[in-house]
């Protein structure tokens, strides 16, 4: 008999019954987005790694209270983001994370992706500068929504905010960006 790949709800069910291998598969599936979410909030890679790791361990301990059938990712990201916020608070950091564009360009004759071709180098620099100048709370929401790729619901969960607050904060940030980016 050929085993079929386990879907996420199967993995969660097995992990809830104590199967650490199933939980490792869940860690593997979500560690990238968990790390990037923590990075945006904590502001540096070392704290982000610790926050993501602690978040996964705490999520394992809380799995018994995870509601069957609910989406796993927003639930997990809320735990990870809490860890990241705790680290940021305890470090008393005020300077925010300055986002940078990758310096490596596609090599050789590789054509830029359609998305990348949408922006000229100058526009890219200008938009990035405008994002970096946003107030901290607005920059975090924009980063999570557009750069990490979280949904509005996931962003609200991660930041522990009502969805309406995320929506209005996003709208205010976009308004500011329109003013400065044009």
């Amino acid at each position, binding site marked *: 008999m050929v085993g079929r790949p386990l879907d996420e709800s199967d993995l969660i069910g097995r992990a809830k019954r104590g199967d*650490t291998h199933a*939980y*490792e598969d869940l*860690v*593997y599936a979500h*560690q*990238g987005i*968990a*790390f*990037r979410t923590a*990075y945006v909030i904590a502001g540096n*890679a070392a704290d*982000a*790694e610790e926050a*993501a*790791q602690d978040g*996964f*361990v*705490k999520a*394992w*301990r*809380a799995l018994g*209270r995870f509601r069957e059938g609910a989406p796993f990712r927003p639930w997990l990201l809320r*735990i990870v983001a*809490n860890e990241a916020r*705790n680290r940021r*608070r*305890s470090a*008393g950091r005020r300077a925010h994370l300055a*986002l*940078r*564009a*990758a*310096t490596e360009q596609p090599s050789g004759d590789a054509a830029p*992706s359609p*998305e*990348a071709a*949408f*922006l000229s180098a100058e*526009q*890219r620099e200008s*938009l*990035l500068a405008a*994002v970096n100048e946003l107030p901290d709370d607005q920059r975090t929401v*924009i980063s999570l929504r*557009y*750069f990490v*790729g979280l949904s509005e619901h996931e962003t609200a969960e991660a930041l*522990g905010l009502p969805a309406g607050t995320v929506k209005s904060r996003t709208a205010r940030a*976009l308004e500011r*960006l*329109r003013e400065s*980016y044009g």
Partner: protein
Amino acid sequence: MAELERALAALAGEIEFPTAPDLRPRVRERLERRRLARPFALAVALLVVAFGIAMAVPPARSAILRFFHIGAVTVERVQRLPAARERPLATGLGPARTLDQAQARSGVTLILHAPQPQHFYARPGLIATLLQYRGKPVLLAELQGDQLGITKKLAAPDTRVEPADMGSFGLWITGGKHVIYWETRPGEGSQIKPRLAGNVLIWTQDSRTFRLEGDLREEQMLELARDITR
């Protein structure tokens, strides 16, 4: 999609994020360590049950230790409660501060996942806050290090001490009121007056001691506690 949002989407692919590390080995190691620690925690819980049973039996009561420790808390059994009266939960803990101020003063990083209050109290080694949970005020105190301790004097059998399924070691104190003493070091601000305390859940996690006090039932207190240190 508006042009600005398209531009942000385009920029997303060019933002430089550090490479995400593979977290599996470290997570696996920590889960394994917890699995191995569980029998020890169970043994401790059984000891506490035995202690509770012994406390309920008068001949045995006199034969066992009159006090014991859990984290930064000492629980002491006395024949008669010392004089103390009821006071507001945060009495003597100092002025309300922001979280950053409280953490700086206490040297303790608060672990509190939900809910998020606005005001905090701090002494060296202690950070505390008042939560509203199920419509009732609950005092959360988190202690770290040895700058501040708590002594609880209780008169059994009026006050019951039971093991609680919380952290590496948890205790649920309920029944008759007991007296709480905050033990500050000399020279570390004004001493805190003792007061009568009601239902209390105490648990330890790593090097921290957590204490919740409020007029909640045990299952409600455990629910809140698990949310705090999940």
